[in-house]
């Protein structure tokens, strides 16, 4: 009797269980929705989360496996970011998007030791683009050094290829992030003969009178900006105040969102920024996001950020993570993934124009080919310009390449120095 009862219970349990449930694919989001940089952190975090929600709601996940986003608030603070990493890595985290250069620098050795990939998309340590040295760090589709070179290419284009004797100022956040492009710009200044003027701004950048008085006196032909948060808004406002021509003021992709130009109002008209992805919400993917995520009340935020620059960037980062997960599933013939398999997927990631069209993102970004040697991707970028009257950004040229001769040499030099310091043997041979 007892045996037959046990048999029934066992049979019922088997029926209820059916095929064992697949574990979620976990994508931690080291976000910052509070603090001085919260305004910038919210749209990115919303875009990142909403894309995975879209995949779950519309497609039933990634190849049938639910994608799970674990948010951890860093407040854009490096120490908190590391704490977030430590507290979430045991949850089955497949890839980290640290969303801060400071946090990225801290995670490079930790995540490498833990075997978890890091995707510092368009930020972090530029020389991590060398996959021979940085096995677990990826910064595709472009790096800060690509950004600097693409901006200089744009300036060259505007000046018929000759910028000899021109003066280009760099207004930069006085931090590891802000200092990243200096080395590249110094090399490009030697190559093209322009004079480079360095203008640091201390954190947080709320007061920049000295810097803009200096710019006003020295009259550079162009001003480039590597800023973040309030530094961007104040710089654009000060530039407008001194009547610096806005079409000669070009920011990196972290200095080119709607938030940055809003306080200057009409004064910001014509301001430019380099970007590695499309702008606006005129892509089919956004209709899906509105239909499956926003209108159903499943959006990560208020749903009012869809189509803004930083939302699009977060969404793009999630799309690249999802595509890398698909690649990993195919490579390893499995639906559940480990961080090591995810890393393999990221290293073999290929997103061509046809796939972008399938994803509802035709023309949103350049084709991406990641390899063992190249973790930085294509390094292409376009220039976006702000129209204050319409309140929109528009791309004013095609996605173009950086000066690979200069950039690749710098990446090699820096990454080899890092490898020597840390006794890292080269891979990919």
């Amino acid at each position, binding site marked *: 009797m007892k045996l037959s009862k046990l048999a029934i219970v066992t049979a019922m349990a088997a029926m209820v269980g059916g095929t064992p449930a697949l574990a979620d694919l976990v994508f931690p989001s080291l976000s910052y*929705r509070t*603090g001085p940089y919260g*305004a910038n952190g919210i749209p990115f975090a919303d875009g990142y989360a909403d894309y995975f929600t879209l995949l779950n709601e519309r497609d039933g996940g990634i190849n049938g496996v639910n994608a799970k986003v674990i948010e951890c608030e860093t407040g854009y603070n490096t120490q908190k970011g590391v704490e977030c990493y430590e507290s979430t890595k045991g949850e089955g985290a497949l890839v980290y998007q640290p969303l801060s250069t400071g946090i990225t620098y801290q995670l490079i050795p930790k995540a490498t030791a833990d075997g978890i990939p890091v995707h510092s998309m368009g930020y972090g340590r530029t020389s991590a683009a060398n996959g021979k040295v940085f096995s677990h760090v990826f910064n595709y589709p472009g790096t800060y050094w690509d950004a600097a070179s693409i901006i200089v290419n744009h300036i060259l284009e505007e000046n018929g290829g000759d910028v000899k004797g021109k003066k280009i100022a760099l207004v930069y956040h*006085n931090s590891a992030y802000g200092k990243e492009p200096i080395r590249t710009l110094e090399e490009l200044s030697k190559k093209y003969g322009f004079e480079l003027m360095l203008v640091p701004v201390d954190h947080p950048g*709320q007061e920049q009178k000295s810097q803009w008085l200096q710019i006003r*006196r020295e009259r550079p032909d162009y001003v480039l900006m590597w800023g973040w948060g309030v530094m961007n*808004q104040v710089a654009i406002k000060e530039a407008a*105040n001194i009547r610096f021509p806005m079409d000669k003021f070009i920011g990196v992709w972290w200095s080119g969102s709607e*938030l940055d130009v809003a306080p200057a109002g009409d004064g910001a008209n014509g301001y430019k920024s380099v970007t590695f992805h499309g702008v606006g919400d005129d892509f089919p993917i956004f209709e899906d996001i509105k239909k499956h995520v926003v209108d159903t009340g499943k959006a990560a935020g*208020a749903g009012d950020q869809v189509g803004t620059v930083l939302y699009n960037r977060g969404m793009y980062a999630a799309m690249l993570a999802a595509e890398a997960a698909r690649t990993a599933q195919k490579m390893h013939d499995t639906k559940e993934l480990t961080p090591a398999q995810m890393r393999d997927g990221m290293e073999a990631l290929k997103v061509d124009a046809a796939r972008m069209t399938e994803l509802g993102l035709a023309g949103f970004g350049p084709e991406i080919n990641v390899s063992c040697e190249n973790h930085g991707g294509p390094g292409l970028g376009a220039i976006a310009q702000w129209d204050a009257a319409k309140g929109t950004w528009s791309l004013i040229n095609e996605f173009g390449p950086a000066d690979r001769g200069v950039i690749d040499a710098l990446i090699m030099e820096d990454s080899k120095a890092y490898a020597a310091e840390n006794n890292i043997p080269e891979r990919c041979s």
Partner: protein
Amino acid sequence: MSPDFLNFIETVLNGLMTGVMYALVALGFVLIFKASGIFNFAQGVMALFAALTLVGLQTGQMPFSHLINATFGTDIHHWGPGLPTILAILMTMAVMIVLAFTIEKVVLKHLVNQEPIILFMATIGLAYFLEGFGDLMWGADVKPLDVGLPTGGSFWLEDVTTSWATAGSEYYGMYIDTLDVSAAIIAIILVIALTIFSQYTATGRALRAVADDHQAALSVGISLRSIWVIVWSISGFVALVAGIMWGAKSGVQFSLSLIALKALPVLILGGFTSIPGAIVGGLIIGVGEKLAEAYIGPLVGGAVENWFAYMVALAFLLFRPQGLYGEKIIERI
């Protein structure tokens, strides 16, 4: 005149204007410290909260809209077209007075006779609460603020001063932001009003009595709690003015709370208990850091003004530990 000399004058003038902006923030600290001995860590967040409320009322933003929409499934973001600027400023002031009442009722009254460090810790808690509350109430996006004050460089000054330079020299005129000029005028009016209030009104005298000696003031029937509400309300008003001026520059955003950092060297230099000290301290720090950035900065790679401000303040401390105008503390054993 040589362009170099004109540039020097321009740097000094801009330093003075910036100093006024710092002094606006420092004033709020001084008012509360003078009346209650509390170093109000939340002063910067109060400026942020006041500015957020002002923009919210000006633009007709629905407070707590995220919370309301998430709870009731609605899609409400605005209650109307918004209030005219003057009315919005008055309403914001009313909100700051309510806030002062609440702070007294919920926090301060329970901490009477506690050590200053306990009161300081309470204001740290208040700062975090107010920041989160402001976020919940008005959202975290960057909000442009326009109260009708002129902004941008003065064309008139540029034109006039261009002719002062030696003929043939490359000089583009002197630059002063008209918003800074407005801030300076408002600060002067504010200081005069505060001085008249504290010298010639009964409440002002009571406030000074409390500042001098809590026990003595209580013994002659002055209500410590009423004085605290009044002083926190005035401080809320000063925070509103600072929030407007700084918010007009950068947009109203959460980094506005960091302007408190700019007030610290001013307070160290001017003293924590003196209104003129806050103004003079602000001017010295403003001019000092701008001159340092212009003339020392290029020699050491720039970005020296933040630490230079603290260096100046510390140098003053060596000679006058109580600050320029602070009260000398003599304790006899």
